């Protein structure tokens, strides 16, 4: 079914609703802040050492590091937006209006979900890619610039699908705005904490099994492009032992692990009870 005019209008209305003041402003501000903070640190290092050339190297190496450091707030922000979209609509009775209109439940779910995920992906991608263009100005090759910019898009998308799916799962189970938002924030923070701050056994185990939706698609892409990306999260020996297809499968797995169950629940069993 090719989306008709009405569905495009519905999608537009959902985007306007999800990104109404002050959400968009907060998102732009936060992403800009983390992006600039990263560049600033690099500039400091390179000017102190007096080697402007090292700026180029540092930026080139740290592009995905910088993106990764944003994943803490991005995953939390994404989760909060998805929770607001589902749980608040349920509480305020608008979910009831949507599900009573002649639109299938699948459409309602997908429209609401992607009205958050797509703009956030694009926003993050545009703003972090600005680092790549700084990279270009500092003398790097065009191919490196384009390659990194291209990689960033699916990596961000898959990571946000993972976080958004989790948030949809939580908010449609709890059906309450504040508990859902709190749960998502806490979960996002603990995932980040376990996988980056702790470097002991717990952190590694967490990385291996569930907490690597971000580096996994990156490794998959780097295998295809024939380049090896230095993993900023240690995947240990696994990164070198596992074949490429495992990383593709894992990427799809991360994107859909929460989304598919919550989609099935929403379209088959979900009820409006208040």
């Amino acid at each position: 079914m090719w989306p008709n005019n009405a569905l495009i209008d519905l999608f537009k209305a959902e985007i306007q609703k999800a990104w109404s003041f002050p959400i968009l402003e907060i998102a732009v501000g936060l992403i800009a802040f983390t992006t600039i903070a990263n560049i600033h640190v690099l500039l400091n290092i390179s000017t102190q050492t007096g080697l402007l050339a090292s700026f180029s190297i540092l930026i080139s190496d740290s592009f995905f590091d910088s993106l990764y450091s944003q994943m803490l707030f991005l995953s939390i922000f994404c989760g909060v937006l998805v929770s607001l979209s589902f749980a608040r609509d349920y509480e305020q009775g608008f979910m009831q209006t949507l599900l009573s209109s002649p639109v299938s439940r699948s459409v309602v779910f997908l429209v609401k979900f992607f009205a958050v995920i797509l703009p956030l992906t694009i926003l993050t991608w545009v703003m972090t890619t600005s680092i790549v263009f700084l990279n270009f100005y500092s003398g790097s090759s065009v191919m490196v610039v384009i390659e990194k910019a291209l990689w960033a898009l699916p990596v961000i998308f898959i990571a946000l699908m993972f976080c958004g799916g989790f948030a949809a799962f939580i908010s449609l189970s709890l059906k309450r705005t504040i508990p859902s938002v709190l749960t998502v924030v806490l979960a996002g923070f603990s995932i980040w904490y376990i996988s980056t701050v702790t470097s002991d056994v717990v952190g590694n185990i967490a990385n291996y099994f569930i907490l690597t939706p971000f580096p996994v698609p990156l490794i998959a892409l780097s295998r295809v492009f024939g380049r090896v990306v230095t993993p900023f999260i240690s995947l240990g020996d696994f990164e070198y032992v596992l074949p490429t297809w495992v990383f593709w499968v894992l990427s799809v797995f991360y994107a859909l692990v929460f989304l598919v169950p919550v989609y099935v629940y929403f379209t088959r069993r979900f009820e409006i009870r208040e």
Partner: protein
Amino acid sequence: MTANILGEFEGVVKRFKEIGALNGLTFKIYKGVNGLIGPNGAGKTTTIRLSLGLIKPDTGSATLLGFDCWKQSLDLRQRIGILYEKPAFYDHLSGLDHLKLMAKLKKLSDPLGESKQVLKLVDFDNEAQYRRISGYSAGMRQRLGLAHALLGQPELIILDEPTSNLDPLGRAQVIELLNTLKKRGFSFLISSHILSELEKVCDHVILMNGGIAVRQGMLASLLSEVPSGIFRIKVHPNEPIVDLLKQEESVKSVTPVENYLIVITYNAHKFQQRLPFLVARANAFLEEVKMEGNDLESLFKIAVAQGDKR
């Protein structure tokens, strides 16, 4: 008669954890105006949600316009108009834009024209239709919700408390509008507990209590069946006099409904003579005595009282 049937509920049961919201609800909806009447918590809203496929019945079957309410809900929603107790909209859009979007989702041929038309019907064709919905008053939201329900000339229009949030003038207007639409051949299922209003529009009523339909039928014939000699009394305190009344030979039954007692008598005259004496004996204070007449309110109270006895 079957050609006139728009919908049918057969032994519908729905439980929320331990609470049975619907306990074997059976009724029919006919062409014309159907009133769904019941006290708070009777299950009216649950029934309406179930009709729109928002709730799945545990057992029993619910069909409207020949479609199963849960399994064929999408087809059904295409043909039904709905106004909920608390209407919700895209608050960042204007009233007109919201209606236009809903008209497009309903696949109407002229979304703008039809939106303007229903806005005119509900007396909302002023400049407010171009303002954002977030700034609307409760009454304006109610009117917009009503306009939404009328969009696309649905075969059945379901209204949950359509006159709540409206001032007396607005209520009268809505009742008048419903009467006009009824003459044009629209069919309604209206839930309400403002019975004096429903009385003016309903052809057919379904009296609900405790998740079942206690009485149903044509309003006129139900009203003609209201027996005489039924009293509604308000006594304080309530308990001691109930026992005394039950021992009276002129009294057939006593049922507490809300803070009243519904007393069905064999002999109205005798009962009226005895009542002051009984009140004095119970050491109670008589606040109100009213003989029930043949209006919807009495019918409702009696039906609830009889329903409780079963």
